[in-house]
């Protein structure tokens, strides 16, 4: 298991960002979390532009679907079609349980699809499980 996991959280809802931050303070491995509020910002982050200059390429992307400007599916498309970024695991983290959304995300090569649990405790537990799983897989080749 790696000592630290760099996560990019793409999420427009402040409440969810806060919940995720709280949940991941006790995650194993330790998490360094960067936040983007939509797909456009997330792309800036991947390209280390603007406020993300000097950052690190994330080990894992947690991606919401419904967001303003570039939504989760559009961002997923860009990532999985790019030779540079397609190997970064992307886990959808969304409140949508729609079969159509689930199917579309997997068709666009999402590496996982997790429905945000309704219960606060479950929410934190699920996030820590996701981090633990991806933290124990081998590191991305550089």
């Amino acid at each position, binding site marked *: 298991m790696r000592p630290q996991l760099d996560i990019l959280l793409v999420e427009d*809802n402040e*409440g969810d960002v806060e*919940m995720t931050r*709280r949940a991941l303070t006790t995650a194993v491995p330790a998490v360094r979390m960067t936040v983007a509020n939509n797909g456009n910002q997330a792309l800036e982050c991947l390209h280390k532009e603007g406020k993300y200059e000097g950052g690190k390429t994330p080990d894992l992307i947690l991606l919401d679907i*419904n967001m303003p400007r570039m939504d989760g599916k559009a961002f997923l498309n860009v990532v999985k079609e790019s030779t540079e970024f397609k190997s970064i695991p992307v886990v959808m983290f969304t409140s*949508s349980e729609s079969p159509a959304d689930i199917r579309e995300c997997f068709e666009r090569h999402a590496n996982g699809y997790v429905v*945000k649990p*309704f219960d*606060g405790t479950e929410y934190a537990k699920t996030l820590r499980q996701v981090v633990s799983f991806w933290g124990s897989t081998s590191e991305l080749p550089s």
Partner: protein
Amino acid sequence: MSAATPNRSEYAPGMAGATPPCILIVDDRRENLLATQALLRPLGAEIITADSGEKALTLVLKSEFAIVLLDVQMPVMDGFETAQLMKTRPSMANVPIIFITAISKEDHFATRAAQIGAVDYIFKPINPDILKSKVSVYLDLYRQREQILQLNASLRQSNEELERFAYVCSHDMQEPVRMMNAYASVLTEFAGDELSEDSKRYLGYIHDNAVRMQKMIRDILSFSRVGREEVTLEVVNCREIFDEVVHELHDTIARKQAVVTSDGLPILKTSPTLMRVLLQNLVGNALKFQDGSHPPEVSVTAKREAHVWRFEVADNGIGIDPALSNRLFTIFQRLHREDDYPGTGIGLSTCRKFVRLCGGDMSFTSRPGEGSVFTFTLPDGD
């Protein structure tokens, strides 16, 4: 007579039907055309004339007519031949044709006219009042049919809008409700020790109601998904789905010491989602609507009838008051207090909507205090 017909613009302002209906008069004699035209003008329809069968045929290609008055005896192409050719056009199939003739009152002409699809056969000299009242009847029928078509179209549209509204609403409402619930629990966890008993109780109310609202949103979403999402038909082993549903309900069954049995459940081509939704709801309801005085007994059976499978879910529960039975399948209708029998009142309406979409139907019989039997049919899929 036309005064009794409501103005179409009241139903659908600005829609295509607001134009007056058209009458086509076909006669090779100009003076006849003029006379009939003058006679029918007060009926308020637009009148178009043709002095030959060929011209009439060209006109029916271009316009839609409410009624055609056709002279039988015309040079080149007579009325019978003209009518026959008109009737080959799909748009003309339901347009009434009235033959007008001076030649013969013999039966075989009238018979031939009827075979071609004429609705009437009028003899010259024309009695103006009779012709006027006959045409007026067909114009009214045409107007009424147009109204129904328009009403259907606008109903369909508003139904689609409503369903879309329900979908978008419930989909977007999930997020804030989840957030309310999450932060109520964060607060409880965060400030638990500092909170007074009252504050803890109030946070509990927020949590309980958020959970209830989430249940409603999920149910509305599944209701509105029926019909929005494509139904895929597969070979479904109903017995397997029954076993899975019973497994899901295991805790309730054990707690209530219920006996749930099945008999004759078929393998048939249908929607697996439909079968699951039906069994989950009907078996779930059968276990829920019990007064606790005896262990629930639920049986799910199926038998094949001509072209359909008939499923029955029978229970020994509290039954349904016949006076309330017509409300049972209506969305959001709950016949009991939330405290007595929790639920959102969406389950059965989703079931019936889904069954009907798949070509079946749903009904029930019940004796209050003794139990209910819910029946649904599904096409046998052959």
